């Protein structure tokens, strides 16, 4: 066994600003060259744990600690943040926000510059690091020219120039589309093999991380480590689902089919999963036993976009001959890579941009003559980051803003705002300042401030980005309730689980065109569309193939039908 590189001994930590400790009695050892994943719901202390390793705690974020943390044999307290940064390289969650340099090369060089490394060594080491992440042809590109995946690779190169012994990733998949996320996990794995550095990944998208092998999973909740074991063992037990972590979908399906999962089935990945004949038959039987729900009555068209074309001033042709029909009461997903046209499409629908070709009709009326504000009475748009929408200090005022600008009398505003707050579960907080709310609650405030205008349809950009499974379920179940009350919901998303579970229909954009318009189950089982839209095949499809199910596509659909009927509890 290798010697330990990181050791926590009876470690506890409490931030100065908080009344309760964030970490309690942590005992954890990471050995040289190991690869571990830390999972846990939001607020469980996993980010705090990471800060204790890279030195942000206690040097940038002060607080009281008990016990010890040693990195490379020396207590972190005695090292300082700069000394630690030579051993531990950290890749933060938002690779856009941590891009410091004006170009790729400068960003990679940043740590070396601070170390006073001179020519020609400086250029040489930057080139080497860029080579490792396959970016040497992009050295002079600006961050705005790069995709999310490329930016992340720049951050990775930026910490690898220092030959660190530990690479720490804080939610590396958070801002990536499924295909890019898969590539990122593969890249981390390759770097692990090449450099032999210990890898620590903090992530709640467990199924995606397990795309490549890991040595151990550490499960945390409420500041404590609940489990620290090999993935096959942890995935066989009930601990994950009991603690609000989403299990891989294929395991959920096995459980529905009544199959008892054991470590020797190698359940940590669908590629390693071994099933006996009995288990395969159980899955297949379950598939045939799920009742097929009746087709819903088709509702009249709410919004029809016909042959819409849009070109930006820069000459970039963002939409080409796009036709999409949305029926009243639908809940549908719009998916595609960055730049595929899904955001532009929603901007054209809301009137932020005007299409040059084609027409948009709403309940049969042409929309060309309506202003942005008039359209907003029918279609509401909720931005990804609630901080980008909230401009008032009090929740009530924020939700009332749209009504006040429409000169609605104050005595009518009060009941309407109170209704919207009730629907969004914000009634208890109606007199609170916005700053006292969590991220998920702020999201609800922005949804309430749109709902108060009583639109027939709302468009949400990545409604669950950065949320853990518990909050994800909370937000999505809320949107489903809203949908059941008759509001048409359009979700712009990268998240395949969201699409599969909540959107019966999905429209796939690719290079400004509509590539596919079908049921989510059909789209996530079609290899061609998956490749073009940067999606990833769902593991349910692989499970169906493994079990010899005659119709894998229908298998995915039955799984969703089953889950919907069971109406999962948050």
């Amino acid at each position, binding site marked *: 066994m290798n010697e330990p590189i990181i050791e926590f001994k009876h470690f506890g930590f409490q931030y100065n600003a908080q009344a309760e400790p964030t970490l309690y009695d942590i005992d954890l050892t990471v050995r040289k060259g190991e690869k571990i994943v830390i999972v846990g719901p939001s607020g469980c202390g996993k980010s705090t744990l990471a800060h204790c390793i890279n*030195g*942000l705690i206690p*040097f*940038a974020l002060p607080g009281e600690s008990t016990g010890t943390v040693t990195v490379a044999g020396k207590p972190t307290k005695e090292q300082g*943040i*700069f000394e630690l*940064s030579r051993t531990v390289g*950290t890749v*933060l969650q*938002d690779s*856009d*926000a*941590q891009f*410091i*340099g*004006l*170009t790729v*090369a*400068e960003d990679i*060089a*940043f*740590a*070396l*510059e*601070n*170390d*006073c*490394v*001179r*020519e020609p060594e*400086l*250029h040489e080491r930057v080139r080497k690091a860029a080579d490792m992440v396959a970016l040497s042809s992009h050295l002079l590109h600006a*961050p*705005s020219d790069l995709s999310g995946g490329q930016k992340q690779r720049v951050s990775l190169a*930026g*910490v690898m120039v220092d030959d660190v012994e530990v690479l720490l990733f804080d939610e590396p998949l958070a801002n990536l589309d499924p295909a890019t996320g898969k590539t990122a996990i593969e890249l981390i794995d390759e770097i692990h093999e090449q450099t032999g550095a210990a890898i620590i990944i903090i992530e709640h998208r467990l199924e995606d991380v397990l795309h490549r092998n890991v040595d151990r999973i550490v499960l945390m909740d409420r500041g404590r480590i609940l489990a620290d074991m090999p993935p096959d063992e942890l995935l066989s037990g009930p601990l994950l689902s009991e603690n609000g972590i989403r299990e891989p979908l294929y395991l959920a399906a096995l459980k529905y089919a009544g199959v008892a999962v054991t470590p020797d089935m190698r359940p940590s990945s669908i590629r390693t999963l071994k099933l006996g004949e009995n288990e395969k038959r159980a899955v297949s039987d379950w598939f045939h036993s799920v009742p097929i729900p009746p087709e819903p009555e088709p509702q009249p068209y709410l919004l029809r976009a016909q042959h819409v074309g849009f070109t930006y001033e820069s000459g970039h042709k963002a939409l080409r001959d796009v036709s999409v029909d949305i029926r009243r009461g639908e809940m549908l997903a719009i998916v595609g890579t960055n730049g595929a046209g899904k955001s532009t499409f929603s*901007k054209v629908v*809301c*009137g*932020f941009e005007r299409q040059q070709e084609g027409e948009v009709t709403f309940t049969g009326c042409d929309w060309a003559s309506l202003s*942005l*504000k008039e*359209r*907003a009475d029918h279609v*509401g*748009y909720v*931005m990804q*980051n609630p*901080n*980008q*929408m*909230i*401009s008032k200090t009090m929740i009530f005022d924020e939700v009332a*803003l*749209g009504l006040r*600008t*429409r000169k609605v009398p104050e005595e009518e505003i009060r009941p309407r705002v109170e209704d919207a707050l009730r629907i969004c579960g914000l009634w208890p907080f109606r007199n609170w300042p916005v700053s006292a709310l969590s991220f998920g609650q702020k999201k609800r405030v922005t949804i309430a*401030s*749109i709902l108060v*205008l009583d639109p027939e349809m709302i468009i949400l950009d990545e409604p669950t980005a950065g949320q853990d499974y518990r909050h994800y379920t909370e937000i999505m179940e809320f949107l489903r309730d809203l949908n059941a009350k008759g509001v048409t919901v359009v979700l712009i998303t990268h998240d395949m689980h969201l699409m599969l579970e909540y959107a019966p229909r999905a429209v796939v954009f690719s290079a400004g065109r509509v590539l596919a318009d079908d049921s989510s189950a059909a789209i996530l089982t079609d290899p061609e569309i998956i490749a073009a839209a940067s999606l990833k095949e769902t593991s349910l499809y692989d499970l169906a193939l493994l079990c010899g199910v005659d119709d894998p596509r229908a298998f995915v659909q039955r799984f969703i039908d089953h889950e919907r009927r069971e109406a999962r509890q948050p």
Partner: protein
Amino acid sequence: MINIFNYVDRPSPIHRLTGATKLVCLLLWTFAAMSTYDTRLLIAMAVLSLILFRISKIRVKDVSFLLVLMTTFMVLNNLLIFIFSPQHGVSLYGASHPVFRITERYTVTQEQLFYHLNLVLKYLATIPAVILFVCSTNPSEFAASLNRIGVKYTIAYSVALALRYIPDIQKEYHEISQAQQARGIEMSRKQNLIKRLKSASAILIPLILSSMDRIDTISNAMELRGFGKNRKRTWYMARPFRTADFIAMAVCALLLAAAIVLNVVNGSRFWNPFT
């Protein structure tokens, strides 16, 4: 979107000078132009700066925004001087040769016209030089050059960071503004000033809050990668001085010396052809 720091990437002898050289030259050049009203030197510098502008291969089209801005400022400056101090030239040059009369106070004199000519020449000598610096200095190199002339690197780097984030913040401003307009906030010029200020706050407050988050992340990221560790740092984009750099700086230093010498010889900052 208007790009204020308008770097135009075109190979020219001016572009090949290092950022630090250009910054030093700009400072020497503007000091020289500011310190003297000697018409002969100002004419020479105005002509020279136009020649340099040609050499740099920057087209008027590339810099039209800056040009319009600075010209407007120049016209306003001259106009205001004439309105508030129509006989300034007379008191400076100690003579009065009236040309024509508007009112008693606003009698246009040769001396006043000559003073305005000098002012315009000052602008002609400095505007092309400033534009030249802005357009031929790679923003990445700018921070390195500030540091080279003695500005602390932590301060120099904050300039580079601002440049890095200007496009992001412009984009974010645009997005927030669209979403707020959809909620009924009018951004048109038809509104009165107070209403427009209120609308602006609906965009600026979210913009500031999300920028604060950004600052938090970036300062953590920088610290984790050793920013502030040493008293000095190196720069990836810094380039070594070459002969051309030394020549350029020497020429600018000579110009400043000439301006000082002329001020001494003339006995004041003004060259007086009237007495």
